[in-house]
Structures are given as structure tokens and as C-alpha cells.
């Protein structure tokens, strides 16, 4: 089987476009209906300007979404699109991806759509490793239903449904995805197009399920949720950019770094205070997700040091290629299906 698997992953079976594409090729005639100032605009533009780089035939790209502001996304993409129902996009996309290796399948979802009603489909997609690229627009609020707290809202959040503050501890989508056996787990942010596109680039090429959490501002119901990561004054001090193979250093002047303490935990140190060899080097390819998990815990409500980038990116055969391989193997072994023979199988007798 392993042979069959080789090179069958990700985009290798998706036909390439004939000519050069531009962002315009991916725009539809539909009016974009997000609130002015919504972070979704920036993500849409980033995706539309990124896709030409992949050079795939437009008709072989599909966007599948659930319900929410973010889930309107497919209407604005001039590809095949499916705006489905709340929380179910990963399930629908799984059927599509598992049956069509010649498609590049993207899921667009929100923090409510993916983590609240759709939580089960998300974690199962991750462990199955179906060829889906999941873009999770995390604005830490239910936008479309006008502002209730979401599974990523910070504790104590006052919203329409929690006038005295929310009680439940939020999910950290990265930790959850790592605990769910995700093979590609990343975080980026709406306001940093370069970073966003660099993550999309890696995700698109990944063989299996890629989860990309995108911090997204909802300027109507949760404005400024990620301001520390955006404010030019502080962002470099609190954003920890993860790069595979690079020492984890951050701060405006690279003045902070991560070190593994004796106990095994990560600790933030002043770069100047430690020897370069003590600075942790990010290894997204580590088969063991434990270090990626530990990095995910650096995140805190106060945004003291928030990692963005690719936490984990490892190889594991994708569900769809393995399924394909089983089909091929069955044919190899016993020949293609013969309906007449099938029906006449088992114990039969003839009456004349």
C-alpha cells in the first residue's frame, strides 16, 4: 500500500490551471455583505490573492462552510462552493474530499460553527486526517446571531446571553486540535496578510487535515479582541512567531526567548541572559505533539506572549489516500467488480 500512497497526497492529483491567474479570477459578482471594517474582508482578500499562487484549476477548488458571518465566505469565491448548515461543514467536506482526490477542498468556519455545534466533526476530521484545509475564523463571539459568547470567549465575558459574565473556560483551539491528533495545526491573524498567506501556503500543501486558526476582529460585537497583537506599539512584544527550525525568540528587539526549564516547561527568558544553545528551537515536525502543545499553552487572556505560526506539521497518510489505496488494492487482488457475479454469489440453485 505504501507505494500507492506515495505522492498521492494533498494537491498532487489536482489539475493545474492553463494560464496565470489573478485575484480577480476568484471574485464573484456577489456583493460582499459583512459589516464595514469586519476582519473577514482582509481574510477574503488574502485568500483571493494567495490562490493564484497555487495555480490550480479554479473549477477544482471547493469552499465548504457552515453558518455564521464567516461562513458566507464561499459566496464570494468564484470556485465551487457549498454554504451548508451550522457546524457540519467538516462532515460535508469529508465526503467531498474522500471521494474526489482531484479537488482542493477548503472549509471556512467560525469559532461557534467549528468549536461549539461543530466540535465533534472538527476533532474527528483532525484525527482522520482527511484532505481538508480548515480556516477557523476566530472572533471569540457569535457574530451572525448578534453577539453571544462563544467557546473561545474569555471567562467573565458580558454578552447578551451572559449579563453577569460567562462562566465556562474557553477552548484553546490549538491545544484542542493537538489533543485531537491533528497533523497540521497553525494560528495566524487577519491583519497580517503576509503571515496569513505563508500559513495558507503550507496548509494547502499539507497532506491531510490542516487546521488554521485565524484571529479575526468582529468590530461590531467584539471589537479589539486581538488588539495587543495588532497595536504597532506592543504587538512585537507579545507575538511569538514560530518558525520551524528556528530558535523561538520574540520581542521588538528579539529580546525575549523561550527556554525549556528543568521541569520541562517552557519559560520566557531575556535573550541576553541565556546562552543561544539554551533557547528552544521550534520543531513543527516532531512526531510527538507534546512540545507543540506546551507552546499552545503560552497563550493567555492577557496576550502576554501569544504564539502564531505553524505549531505542528507532520506526515501521516491521509484518510482519502488510504481509502483510495484500499479500493485499488481490492481491484488488484480480485479484479474490478462484476455485478452479475456478485448477485449470483453465495449458495444458489437453478429452477428450470
Amino acid at each position, binding site marked *: 500500500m505504501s507505494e500507492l500512497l506515495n505522492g498521492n497526497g494533498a494537491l498532487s492529483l489536482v489539475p493545474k490551471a492553463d494560464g496565470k491567474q489573478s485575484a480577480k479570477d476568484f471574485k464573484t459578482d456577489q456583493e460582499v455583505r459583512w459589516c464595514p471594517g469586519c476582519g473577514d474582508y482582509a481574510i477574503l482578500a488574502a485568500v483571493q490573492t494567495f490562490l493564484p499562487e497555487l495555480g490550480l484549476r479554479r473549477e477544482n477548488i471547493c469552499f465548504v462552510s457552515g453558518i455564521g458571518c464567516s461562513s458566507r465566505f464561499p459566496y464570494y469565491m468564484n470556485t465551487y462552493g457549498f454554504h451548508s448548515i451550522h457546524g457540519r461543514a467538516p462532515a460535508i*467536506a469529508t465526503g467531498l474530499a474522500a*471521494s474526489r482526490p482531484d479537488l482542493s477542498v477548503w472549509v471556512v468556519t467560525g469559532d461557534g460553527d467549528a468549536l461549539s455545534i461543530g466540535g465533534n466533526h472538527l476533532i474527528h476530521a483532525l484525527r482522520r486526517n482527511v484532505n481538508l484545509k480548515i480556516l477557523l475564523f476566530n472572533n471569540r463571539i457569535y457574530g451572525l446571531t448578534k453577539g453571544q459568547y462563544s467557546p473561545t470567549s474569555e471567562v467573565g465575558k458580558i454578552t447578551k446571553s451572559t449579563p453577569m459574565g460567562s462562566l465556562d473556560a474557553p477552548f484553546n483551539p490549538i491545544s484542542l486540535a493537538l489533543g485531537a491528533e491533528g497533523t497540521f495545526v497553525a494560528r495566524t491573524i487577519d491583519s497580517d496578510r503576509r503571515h496569513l498567506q505563508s500559513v495558507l501556503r503550507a496548509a494547502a500543501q499539507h497532506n491531510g487535515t490542516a487546521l488554521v486558526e485565524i484571529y479575526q476582529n468582529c468590530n461590531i460585537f467584539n471589537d479589539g479582541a486581538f488588539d495587543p497583537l495588532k497595536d504597532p506599539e506592543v504587538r512585537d512584544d507579545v507575538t511569538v512567531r514560530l518558525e520551524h527550525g528556528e530558535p523561538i525568540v520574540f520581542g521588538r528587539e528579539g529580546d525575549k526567548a523561550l527556554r525549556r526549564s528543568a521541569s520541562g516547561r517552557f519559560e520566557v527568558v531575556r535573550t541576553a541572559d541565556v546562552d543561544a544553545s539554551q533557547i528552544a528551537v521550534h520543531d513543527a515536525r516532531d512526531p510527538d505533539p507534546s512540545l507543540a502543545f506546551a507552546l499552545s499553552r503560552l497563550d493567555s487572556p492577557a496576550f502576554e506572549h501569544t504564539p502564531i505560526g505553524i505549531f505542528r506539521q507532520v506526515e501521516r497518510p491521509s484518510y482519502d489516500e488510504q481509502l483510495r489505496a484500499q479500493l485499488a488494492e481490492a481491484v488488484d487482488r480480485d479484479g474490478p467488480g462484476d455485478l452479475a457475479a456478485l448477485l449470483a*454469489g453465495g449458495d444458489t440453485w437453478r429452477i428450470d
Partner: protein
Amino acid sequence: MTKQVQQLDRVIIRFAGDSGDGMQLTGDRFTQETASFGNDLSTLPNFPAEIRAPAGTLPGVSSFQLHFADHDILTPGDAPNVLVAMNPAALKANIGDLPRGGDLIVNTDEFTRRNLAKVGYAANPVEDGSLDEYRVHALPLTSMTVGALEDFDISKKDAERAKNMFALGLLSWLYHRPTEGTLAFLERKFAKKPGIMKANIAAFQAGWSYGETTEAFSVQYEVKPAAQPAGLYRNITGNMALAYGLVAAGVRSGLPVFLGSYPITPASDILHELSKHKRFGVRTFQAEDEIAAIGAALGASFGGSLGVTTTSGPGIALKSETIGLAVATELPLLVIDVQRAGPSTGMPTKTEQADLLQVMYGRNGEAPVPIVAPQSPSDCFDAALEAARIAVRYRTPVVLLSDGYLANGSEPWRIPDVDTLPTIEPGFAEPGEEGFQPFRRDPETLARPWAVPGTAGLEHRIGGLEKPDGSGNISYDPDNHDTMTRLRQAKIDGIANDIPPLAVDDPSGRARVLVLGWGCTYGSIAAAVRRVRAAGGEIAQAHLRHLNPFPANLGQVLRSYDRVVVPEINLGQLALLLRGKYLVDVIGYNRMRGLPFKAEELAGVIQDVIDSE
């Protein structure tokens, strides 16, 4: 010893024992022997919901009933002529069904004080005269089996386990069954355990010889083969036939089959069966839940597969939101509901017809779907093909309503010639149409184009929001919504012109009473009708394959009879639809016992209506 041979036209045997006694296997083997002998037959397995309920208890009793005859028959039979009871629990649970004078074979070895007490027998019924009204054959089956296997190098437990083969051998002798099939089967089954294989074969042969040599049985019976249309036959259960129907639908449409399913009794076997047919390009996906299962199937349909999902009633409840999405997006999808007794978890291994209104109406908004129902185990094959035809032609989810009785029951099936099966045209939208409109309808069928990803120039977006016909963009226009709602309904209603009119069996043409059924009641109703006719009654019979839309002539048929009786294993669900649509005062007959109707019971009901005319 030469035995008397008595000719019978039909026999009903029930094997009953502990879940661990292998009664389903015994029944299956006897069925295969009987089938290959050329009798017509019908079977009814009946087993507990527990995997292995505690040994020797009433809930642990498992049984298998087989009806076979020298003529065509329709049901597994109302009451057994012969009951095989492997232990006191099996006796207690089943004796009530054995008519006076019936044959009763009991395995006395199991009638120990402890086992008797377990099921509340104060005294041993085999000895206290309470079974005097039956023809009792009290046999120490276990010890005879163990005795016969003395020389084999197997454990006592394994030897004891072979007692079902001893019983099978005895019954096979008693009814003159061919034995090659069973011998070959045992060889296959235990190929990897030759000791066990030989022991089982020996037990089987010992049972046969016992019948032949002992005085306990003075008569041997013979049931001649039935005259059946020429052809190649096999015995088949409903779930198997259904799975084959799906494979056939894939082959005949050229569409790859994609099954998204979550296991649930009594539907799981369809998943199991289809997972074996990867050679046909059939993809099976065991999902994390029912919602993911139908979601994946719908996603595959969007991608140009024949999307299928299989489940039972509780699963349908979970899938209902996604069925609505399939209605709104107008994609082909097969939703297979193998009904079981509800509400809620109900009685998972028992049958019922109480999901009709659920599949008809169980979604938000006006969301019509066609409904097709098979009427016998082998008919599941044709029904699956018909459901697929409608789904693909009309770009719509279609519900196929099977049930636990059809699923596990079996009957001989004349294997169809593949070339005679209907072909199904996917009719994908062709690339390159200018200004492609994903909701431009075919004027005849009102179906929209099926434009699958990968087709250049047809890029489009679909979704669950309301849309104008044609473009498929989002629309909140009030009048458009009214128009679209009516269009979706009209598309489904229009299928009435694409299905055969309801055929009525009314031989004399003089009947004033019609009995109308759907689904698994076909056999019981037809058998009842035969009885009524045999007794001189005039009765017309019709059976609905399509529950939505109804055949175009249904109203007219209903109105041409003075009385219409509608037997259903629910509280009157089809009756409600008929009354609501045609304003005909149909008479429901409803019993929910988790079992098919008895022919006798229905014959009585029908006769009463005739008499009250």
C-alpha cells in the same frame, strides 16, 4: 429401520434457544438447505438486544422461524408446527405460540433444577404433564452430542456447543433436507480449526442418524419443491438485497457509491456488506455520528457520487436537518431508514412501521421528499434501484423505508439478469455553458442541473438559504420564497407521473372491500387475502411502493371500493395521509408488537369488514 414418509405442503419450524446456542446459525443452515431443495420459504429471526443476555434467562432467548412449502408462500408463518426448545427459557418464551398437537423437541439435558428455577418453572414441564397437549420429543441433545464426539480431541465445552448441529442434523433428516450445503459450509467456516470442523460435521451426522435409527421418530416428512419461475435462485435477506441494490445502482448509473453511515441496529449490516464491495468503487465511511454520516454522503453527492446514508429511526431524527439541506440544495441522496420499534430507543431488534410520518414531515419548513418502500426481503433490491433512479433524475433526497423484519428476514430470490436492470442517467451538466444557472430547471422534471466540481465554467455556490430560481444566489424576496416553495413541492408531486399506477389485485372484479398496505406487511396481507378468498370472500388487494408522491390513480382506486382497510404496524400513519389527501374514510388496523402481522389475524379483520358490509 424404515420410516413412514408423510407428504406435507408446508411446515413452519421454530428453533429456539439461548443466545449462545447458535440458533440463528442453525436456522440459517436449515434455510439454505431448504432453499437449495427448491421449496419456497420465508424466515423470521428474533433475537434479544443484548449481545449475550445472561444464559438461561428469558431475555436471553433467541429464535429463528422458517416457513417452507411446495407452493409460493408469503410469510414466515403465524405459528410453528414444530418447536425446538434448547432450554427451559426457550420453552417458556415460545410454547404459547405452538398450537395444540404441535411437535415439540426439547433438550432435556438443560432442564436442570437451576435452569428451571431461573425462568420460574416450579416443576419440570417435560415431566409434570403440562405439555401433554403437544407431541413431545424429549431428547438429551447435549449428552447425545457429547457422546457422539467422545473420540474427538476437543474440549467438553466445544463438544457441547455442537449440539445445535446435532439438532440440525435431526431436523434435516426429519424433513428430508439435502446436506451437502451444510457440510461444505462447516468446512469453510471452521477451515482454520479442523478439530472443531470435524466435530461439528460428526454432530450433524449423528443427529441425522439418530433420526434414522431411533424409534423416537416414526414418521419422516417430505415437502416437495415449489413450482417457481425458471431461473437462478439464492436465498437473501432484506439488508443484503438492499446492499446489492445499491451496488447495482452504482453500476447502472456509472456513479461511484459513497456510503456515509453510523452503525445502528437493524441497519448496520448494510454498512458491513457494502464495505466488502470496494472492487465496485464503493466507498464506505463509518462516521462519528449520524449527522456526519449524512453530511459526508451529501458532500459526496455534491462531488458527483451517489451519496447514500443508512440508519434506523433514531438516526433519521438526527439527520433531519441535513435532509432539509439536501432538499434546499436539490442534490441526489439516498436516505435509508431500516425502521425499528420506537419511540426513542424503543425495542431496537423489533420491527415497526412508525417512521412514515417522520420521514414525510420531520424537517423544518416545507421540505418534501419522495418515499419508497420495499415489500419483501428480496424486493429491497428493486426498491433501492427505484429510490436511486428518482434521486438522480429529480436531484432530490429520497427516503427508502425498510424495517427490521425485512432487513433480517429472508426469502428465495430469482437473481435478475443484469442487463434487464434499469439504467440511471446522471445527466451531469456539461462544461462551457455560458452564464451557467445552477437552478435553471428541466421543464419536464423540474430538476436542476447537477454540475459537479471539476467542470470548467460551471463554478457555482449552493446553500441552505432561500434563492431565486435560476441563479441560486441568496434571495429574501417574499414572492420568490412562495414561488420556490411551490416549485420544490411541484417537483416532488410531479414524480407521480413517472411511477406506475397502483395495481389492484381483484380477480373477480366484484370485491367491495380493498385492503391496502405498504412495506413489510405485504406478505401477511397477501397471505390473509388468500385465506379470505379461499373461504369464498371477495377482497381486493393493493400495495404501495411509493408513499410520496402517491401513484396518480390512488384516489380513484380508493373511491372504487366501499371500504378500504389499511393494516399498519403503527397507529395509522398511512391512514392519516390517505384520509387527509383523499377524504376517504379508510379503516386502520394497527398493532405494534414489534413483529409482523399474522395472516390469520389479518384474515379475521378483513373478513369482519366484508361481513359488516
